[in-house]
């Protein structure tokens, strides 16, 4: 999923200060799962903002609404009945959702209330970690199911650097060395020999190197 974290309240307050009526929009997908921008977080942020402005003598009107999926025009359309009653939109979706709202409602200011962080997985209750950078040409089939692009600090494709110590990355003892994990997994699979195969210079065009990407499925596109 796409993970996110709420921005500091002061930053959000600075965005909405010029306005009296805010439409605060959550999303029921990834940001709900990572507890950053679902219905519950919309309610908490709404109360926090109203309280903060009340202290300054301002009665901020906040209309709360959580969409099924904010990156999907079909659901974003739902806001059309509420948009005129708001001076600005505050979105708690990932950057995709924020941009979809901005695209649909061109004359309405839209502000992000969360920082979109990474594509990751839940490691345990309350902990998420990066797993994928969407390079567009998945290597997991040859790296033991562990991605060196997302999980090695230097995205090295051919093994650990000289900074790998006790299974940890040179940048921090809190970061696992991806190549230690890959090696351990290749061993568990009896595929140690695969380590010696050199992965040649990667074609990054399928990733960010190729500019903004788009998928067009001829069989589905209208």
């Amino acid at each position, binding site marked *: 999923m796409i993970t996110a974290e709420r921005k500091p309240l002061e930053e959000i307050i600075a965005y909405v200060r010029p306005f009296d009526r805010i439409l605060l929009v959550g999303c029921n997908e990834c940001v709900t799962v990572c507890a950053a921008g679902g219905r519950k977080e919309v309610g908490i942020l709404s109360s926090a903002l109203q309280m903060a402005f009340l202290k300054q003598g301002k009665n901020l009107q906040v209309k709360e609404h959580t969409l099924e999926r904010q990156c999907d025009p079909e659901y974003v359309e739902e806001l059309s009945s509420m948009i005129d009653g708001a001076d600005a939109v505050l979105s708690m979706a990932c950057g995709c959702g924020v941009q979809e709202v901005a695209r649909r409602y061109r004359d309405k200011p839209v502000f992000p209330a969360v920082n979109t962080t990474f594509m990751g997985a839940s490691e345990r209750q309350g902990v998420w970690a990066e797993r994928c950078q969407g390079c567009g040409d998945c290597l997991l089939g040859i790296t033991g199911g562990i991605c060196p692009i997302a999980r090695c*600090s*230097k*995205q*090295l*494709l*051919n*093994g*650990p*650097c*000289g*900074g*790998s*110590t*006790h*299974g940890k990355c*040179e*940048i921090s003892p809190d970061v696992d*060395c991806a*190549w*230690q994990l890959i*090696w*351990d997994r290749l061993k568990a699979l009896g595929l*140690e020999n695969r*380590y*010696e195969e*050199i*992965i*040649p*210079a990667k074609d*990054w065009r399928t990733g960010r190197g190729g500019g903004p990407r788009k998928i067009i499925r001829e069989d589905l596109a209208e």
Partner: protein
Amino acid sequence: MSTKTPSRLEKILAAGHRAVTSECGPPRGSDPAVIEKKAALIRDHVDAVNVTDNQTSMTRMCSLAACIRLKQMGLEPILQMVTRDRNRIALQSDILGAAAFDICNVLCLSGDHQSFGDCAQGQNVHDLDSMQLLQTVRRMRDDGKFLGGDDIARPPQMFVGAAANPFADPFEIRVLRLAKKVSAGAEFIQTQCIYNLDKFEQWMTQARDRGLTERVSVLAGLTPMKSAGMARYMKNRVPGMDVPDEVVSRLADTPKEKQPEVGIDICVEAIERLKDVEGVAGFHIMAIEWEEKVAEIVERAGLYPRPEV
């Protein structure tokens, strides 16, 4: 053994001599006198001089410019190149730039993470990794081709090297990693600083068993310790460094003013012992900001005078 490049280092190794290399770190400024002064201290005692590439991610004078200064002084530079800061266009371009000044040794590295340096807020590049950079230089030299496939007019004549750290984890992968670098095109290897001689010898045995020492020249890396404090720092704070307790305590048990001398003793003793290790083709003496001691180390280790080739 025939040579493929005009590299003096390659000729020394091909002739069966033990090679001696050292390094000069470029300054954090534009004064060429700094690099020239360091070079003058070591020039008669080494066969070639590594010029580091923004080591520990601190912004410095570029390796290529400093290599050109050394070349103009008549020294033989080894251009260190990290894949952290430049994409494949810039790396290939700098290789051609170096070749334009007949710099004919290159050391391919990934580089320390930028979080250690003065630009921790920057991005790293790592378009290629060190293996792929080795492949790239070999392709440019041997096939006369750019990575993109086009022909190179006057291909670079570079003797190609890589680093190896016998002490990083996982240990069991370390010789496989050396094998991989050799397959990628490494012709010489300079190792991480060696303090744990037993572990290094174990690594060399594995490398010999795989026949790697017949395919690549391994230069054993050594850094003399200036003090017990430095030894503790290297042991505890530098990732991938293995400093045994005996080394730390030998320095710590020495009066402070004598510690530099003992640091040099430890270094010379290590060279003496490693000379007898089959497959060690030479020594890479990294006297960090202590270049004035290189001559003494080389002489005391019986590696002076340097052979003519």
